[in-house]
């Protein structure tokens, strides 16, 4: 007997369902294309995805069942702009790779598991301490229980998580064993459910157990340095450099914290790695003591020693990658800017990575450009002669300014190859100076004659120095 284990949207539309017999499906739809399911390949693909998420998102990622991933986003979400942006970004990223995904963020593994699988929404974010409200109406299949238990509970008339949790615990355990109670407690966060992060043999990992729990920051720093030294030695053996390092802190009360250090370029210099990790030791809460430290290089790249030609004449420009790493790990956004060949001012600039190779070129434009450019041009009231005279007077932020001298217009055409709406758009830019010598970059949307080219409203776009 063969069964359907997965179906694409077109098949679902035709009335095929997962769990349907293959022969019935073939009877319903002629010329049905069927591919043999391969659980082993699926599992391998899921593991690859988990490793990718491990590098990209959080130090704690594991495969959840046969069809999901579980990610501990604690301490990792702010790097992606918050939980909502993290999950929507993740879902979009997967869609870009041709995968359909649903994601949920909740306080516990159990709740997130259930919500991601049972809600129709693509992304769900449950606020902290709101798990009970979110899961109370979910069916009991959400509880990761064996099928027989679920059927047994249904026979008793229990359909939702809320009904099950209202049952007295003793008869329930007598009838179905400890499993339903344990799963309920895990879902509501009453018992801990640690996530064991995925590991592969290639990952370089060093650990240190303590006979006596440690807690002082200096002691932690001392052992972090020792672990980093061991890790660097292991990386050097393999000719690798670390790009992401995770430090796991196991406390005596069986809870775990983690610190992640990201690097812009592969590194195995112990001093740099330990500075990055020791920099944030104050964020560790040792509680009653730490019994184990584990350091893993989750993402390593080949790093070879290279001889650098040195010049005795030229002044050496220091490599700032260590500084970029330190600041980047503290949550600052580091970037450089590079020119883009576009006349539209806001498009003439793009951000590149701080450690990207030198571009070498600067902006070719020789016209004066304002030092500050407003993200949103601000409306001004203007008295000006049409079609191509600069304003004589303008009112900006409630203050009337008389224009003493002006330069312009500098006509900038819309870029229809970016947006079809800009096909006829025109902006006429003027440099205007008021009586105090303060100079502004103002523009008129439109060429002053043809209403097709713009609204003929005036805006301030920037301030000159």
């Amino acid at each position, binding site marked *: 007997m063969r069964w359907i284990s997965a179906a694409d949207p077109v098949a679902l539309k035709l009335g095929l369902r997962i769990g349907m017999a293959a022969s019935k499906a073939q009877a319903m739809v002629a010329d049905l294309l069927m591919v043999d399911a391969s659980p082993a390949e699926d599992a391998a693909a899921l593991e690859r995805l988990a490793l990718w998420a491990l590098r990209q998102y959080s130090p704690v990622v594991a495969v959840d069942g046969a069809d999901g991933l579980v990610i501990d986003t604690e301490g990792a979400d702010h790097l992606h702009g918050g939980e909502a942006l993290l999950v929507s970004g993740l879902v979009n990223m997967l869609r870009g790779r041709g995968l359909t995904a649903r994601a949920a963020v909740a306080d516990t593994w159990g709740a997130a598991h259930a919500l991601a699988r049972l809600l129709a929404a693509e992304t769900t974010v449950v606020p902290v301490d709101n798990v009970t409200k979110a899961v109370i109406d979910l069916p009991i299949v959400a509880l990761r229980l064996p099928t027989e238990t679920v059927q047994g509970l249904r026979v008793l008339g229990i359909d939702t998580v809320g009904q099950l949790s209202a049952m007295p615990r003793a008869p329930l355990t007598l009838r179905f064993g400890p499993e339903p109670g344990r799963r309920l407690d895990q879902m509501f966060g009453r018992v801990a459910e640690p996530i064991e992060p995925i590991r592969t043999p290639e990952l370089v990992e060093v650990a240190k157990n303590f006979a006596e729990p440690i807690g002082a920051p200096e002691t932690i720093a001392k052992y972090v340095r020792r672990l980093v030294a061991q890790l660097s030695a292991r990386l050097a053996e393999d000719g690798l450099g670390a790009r992401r390092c995770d430090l796991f802190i196991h406390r005596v009360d069986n809870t775990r914290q983690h610190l992640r250090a990201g690097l812009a370029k592969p590194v195995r210099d112990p001093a740099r790695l330990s500075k990055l990790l020791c920099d944030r030791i104050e964020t560790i809460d040792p509680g009653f003591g730490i019994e184990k430290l584990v350091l893993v290089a989750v993402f390593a790249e080949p790093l070879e020693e290279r001889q650098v030609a040195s010049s005795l004449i030229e*002044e050496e*420009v*220091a*490599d*700032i990658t*260590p*500084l*970029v790493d*330190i*600041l980047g790990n*503290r*949550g*600052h*956004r*580091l*970037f*450089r*800017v*590079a*020119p883009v060949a576009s006349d539209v*001012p806001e498009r*003439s*600039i793009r951000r590149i990575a*701080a450690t990207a190779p*030198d*571009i*070498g070129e*600067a*902006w070719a*434009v020789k016209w*004066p*450009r*304002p*030092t*500050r*450019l*407003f*993200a949103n041009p601000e409306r001004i009231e203007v008295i000006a002669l049409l079609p191509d005279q600069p304003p004589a007077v303008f009112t900006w932020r409630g203050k009337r300014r008389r224009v*003493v*001298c*002006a*330069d312009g217009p500098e006509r900038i055409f819309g870029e229809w190859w970016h947006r079809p709406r800009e096909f006829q758009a025109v902006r006429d830019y003027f*440099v*205007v*100076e008021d*009586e*105090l*010598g*303060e*100079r502004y970059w103002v523009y008129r949307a439109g060429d002053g004659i043809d209403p097709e080219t713009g609204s003929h409203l005036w805006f301030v776009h*920037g*301030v*000159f*120095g």
Partner: protein
Amino acid sequence: MANHALNPVLAELRERIEQLEGGSQRARQVLPFGVAEVDRALPGGGLAFGALHEVAGGGGGTVDGAAAALFVAGIAARSRGKVLWCMTRPDLFFPAVAQAGLHPDRVVFCESDREEEALSAMEEGLSFGGLAAVVGELVRLPMTASRRLQLAAEKTGAMGIVLRRWRRQNEASDYGQPTASTTRWRISTLPSERLPVAGVGRARWLAELMRVKAGECAEFEIGAPDGKGRIDLLPTARDGADQTARWRSLAG
């Protein structure tokens, strides 16, 4: 001021005080402006490396700090090495800065969410060493913070420049509060050079050296940095006749 610099007795005294202040300190390096009048007003003949400097705008520039940013860019352009530019409001339009001679490859921006984070990034940059200058756009600069920045700069010899810009124009009175910075500047715009034809001439600024350690305050009328970051002194600065007209126009 010029006399002070030339007086041998004072010069000797100054040297002895410097020895007392920091015996192990390496010889102070300076970045001259290349304008004799300005350099004479600064001890050592230029803006000191390994020190903290404060720059703010005047008038509308207290909020946008456009002229001050360009002045700082001119200074950074004439230094050698990378520049770290810390800020919380990313509205600097780099093509303008590039026109003052600062190449985009030399500047690494560091955008933070809060002021304190920008301060900590500045301090980290100053104590990193190997950077030519660290620029920070800040609203508040308490004494303690400025002291930390000054000490970090002294240790590595990088130049720290705090670009003060406020949320509202009337908050700029904060600029009178004492800080540990070595020099303090205010850059306000002046009406630009009148051209014989219609159009806007080269930008002109009033650069007030409001405070300088071991020196006296001064003010200069300067032309905005050229393509290599060099400022120059305007011919009108010598007689001060233009000043009253300027103040009258500011008051009215």
